[in-house]
């Protein structure tokens, strides 16, 4: 088990961008890898009964943090720092008068904030934000949308995955766009692309190999820093994050004369499970926060006491967390729906029906089934794979031979 000093000894920047070939997945502890293999075996021999606990549920002795407290302790990720990190990475390229590569790609897995980072960066730099074409324009494949992009000023397209549809008529537009953009016809630009779309488009478009960057995977140390910053900004009183079963610290506590505190490996497990995806890790982190058993009584002790003594936030042990999993008997149809959602980083149900070789009613049935299992959710018109369900979905698709991303 690590101590506070072990957790703090690595010192690498939080928001670090690297060529996608240099993306390094966080390693899981050996014991956890063995446990995962064991649980796969256990699942094999379990009867096909509907699991009632596939969604998160509170442990008997703990309860979930109230929504308001979660928002205070683990608020939404602040993408400004990420955008500044990107700016630092691009500094040389931005300074060049006429760079050799006029286009740079930023590739990131779902929920990793690729669109948000580029949107923030575009606002900071006052570049032109390209609007994605509508699905109808994509299917028509005509040049109306392309001709709108001929303005030579610097531009950013945050979501390349919205410029194609996996349909025989939905691939021409993205090819023409990439041909022109990468030959410098549109001037200098940055293109954001979801990692699943990137994997797919590598088979669709065979142009000049562009420069592609990715946000480096978040290891335990980066997660400690980012969650600590969130907690520090939440309250003036110190917050102690401790694992509920053994009391070990999940985030390093303020240093005392008692020496280094014993640390939990929760965040190492979190980094490995989320494959270094900060958005997924953040969602899992929020799902793991609990109030202490007598939390309600403690709330009445008043803010003054809390300021002096600090407040303990309990974190559920990794083994007790229940994440969404594929419903028993899941097969081809579930895979089709999930894969298509990932390839397009979410899409409306009506377009999903057009892309899949399933009847419209079957497609909707699958969507509702996956929603019930906590794997898909509706965000405005778009259906998307949920951050909590994403690791299970990726594993399922990979095990069944579908094209997966490299992150």
């Amino acid at each position, binding site marked *: 088990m690590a101590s506070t000093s072990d957790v703090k000894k690595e010192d690498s920047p939080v928001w670090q961008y690297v060529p996608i070939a240099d993306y390094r997945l966080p390693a899981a502890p050996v014991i956890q890898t063995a446990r995962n293999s064991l649980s796969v075996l256990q699942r*094999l021999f379990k009867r096909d009964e509907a699991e009632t606990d596939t969604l998160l549920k509170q442990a008997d002795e703990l309860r979930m943090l109230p929504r308001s407290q979660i928002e205070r302790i683990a608020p939404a990720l602040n993408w400004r720092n990420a955008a500044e990190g990107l700016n630092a990475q691009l500094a040389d390229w931005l300074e060049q008068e006429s760079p050799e590569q006029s286009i740079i790609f930023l590739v990131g897995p779902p929920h990793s904030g690729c669109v948000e980072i580029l949107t923030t960066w575009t606002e900071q730099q006052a570049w032109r934000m390209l609007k994605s074409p509508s699905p109808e324009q994509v299917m028509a494949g005509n040049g109306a949308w392309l001709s709108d992009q001929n303005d030579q000023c610097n531009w950013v397209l945050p979501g390349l995955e919205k410029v194609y549809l996996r349909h025989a008529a939905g*691939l*021409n537009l993205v090819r023409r766009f990439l041909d022109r953009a990468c030959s410098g016809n549109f001037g200098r630009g940055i293109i954001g692309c979801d990692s699943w779309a990137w994997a*797919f488009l590598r*088979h669709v478009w065979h142009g000049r190999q562009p420069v592609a960057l990715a946000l480096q995977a978040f290891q335990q140390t980066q997660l400690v820093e980012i969650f600590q910053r969130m907690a520090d900004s939440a309250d003036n009183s110190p917050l102690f994050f401790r694992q509920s079963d053994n009391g070990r610290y999940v985030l390093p506590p303020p240093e005392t004369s008692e020496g280094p505190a014993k640390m939990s490996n929760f965040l190492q497990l979190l980094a490995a499970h989320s494959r270094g995806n900060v958005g997924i890790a953040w969602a899992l982190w929020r799902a793991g926060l609990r109030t202490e058993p007598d939390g309600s009584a403690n709330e009445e002790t008043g803010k003054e006491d809390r300021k002096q003594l600090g407040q303990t936030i309990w974190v559920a042990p990794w083994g007790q967390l229940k994440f969404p999993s594929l419903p028993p008997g899941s097969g081809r149809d579930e895979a089709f729906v999930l*894969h298509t959602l990932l390839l397009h980083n979410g899409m409306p149900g009506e377009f999903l029906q057009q892309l*899949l070789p399933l009847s419209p009613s079957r497609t909707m049935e699958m969507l509702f089934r996956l929603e019930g299992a906590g794997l898909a959710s509706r965000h405005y018109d778009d259906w998307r794979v949920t951050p909590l369900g994403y690791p299970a979905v990726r594993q399922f698709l990979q095990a069944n031979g*579908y094209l997966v991303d490299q992150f």
Partner: protein
Amino acid sequence: MNGSSDVLEILRGLIWANLTQVGLIVVGAWVLIALSNRFLPWLANRISSRHRLFLLALLPALRLLIIAASFVLIVPRVIEPTFENLVALFGALGLAAGFALKDYASSLVAGIVTLYEAPYRPGDWIKINGAYGEVKSINMRSVEIVTPDDTVVVIPHLKLWNQLIFNANDGGRNLQCVADFYLHPRHDAAQARHTLCDVALSSAFVNMEQAINVVVQEKPWGTHYRIRAYPVDPRHQFDFITDLTVRGKAALTRLDVEFVAMPAMAEMGS
């Protein structure tokens, strides 16, 4: 020739206790085989399709192992396992099998050869004598395949000696599917080929890591297009071909390409 009297002499030492043991061994082997027949396919259908074929391929080897083990356990209980006794017993059995059960014995031997040469394994899609289907089980004497029409075909292993055996995926997951299109010769072939490539690329069934190719051939009645691509799972092959055909026709219709109605008849007439 006194082989049969030798055998009787050899077997004379049998006592009831041994017979009971032999019976128990036979029943035990039968139970083990029955259990493996049920358990392994059940397990194979629960794990990812990536490991399914490997697990199914274990089944005939496991069965042979059980039979060989039970044989080794039975022989010393039936006869005194001296060299002379064994030669006499197997000689007599071989003679009887050679005349009376020639084809049966040939199938049994071929069954053992299939385990070594592996011309087909459970999960493979094979075609023998015009019967095409997925290998469901490999028994000692025969192989059982299930056709796309859900008909079980039992094929003796002895076909191995003198018949052509077509194996579409050969123990792997890569099974090439072909979708045919017959078009009127007057059209833009490059555009049609490009469109059919996109039809395959955009299929939900397609294995993107394998090559996709569209072969074009000019015929007397028109132009013959063949999409060659691989599904993610060999079991989806017919749905995959259907998907390619349906979406390919729709895409070609959007190009205003005219289809040839009866190429076979036109070919006969030409």
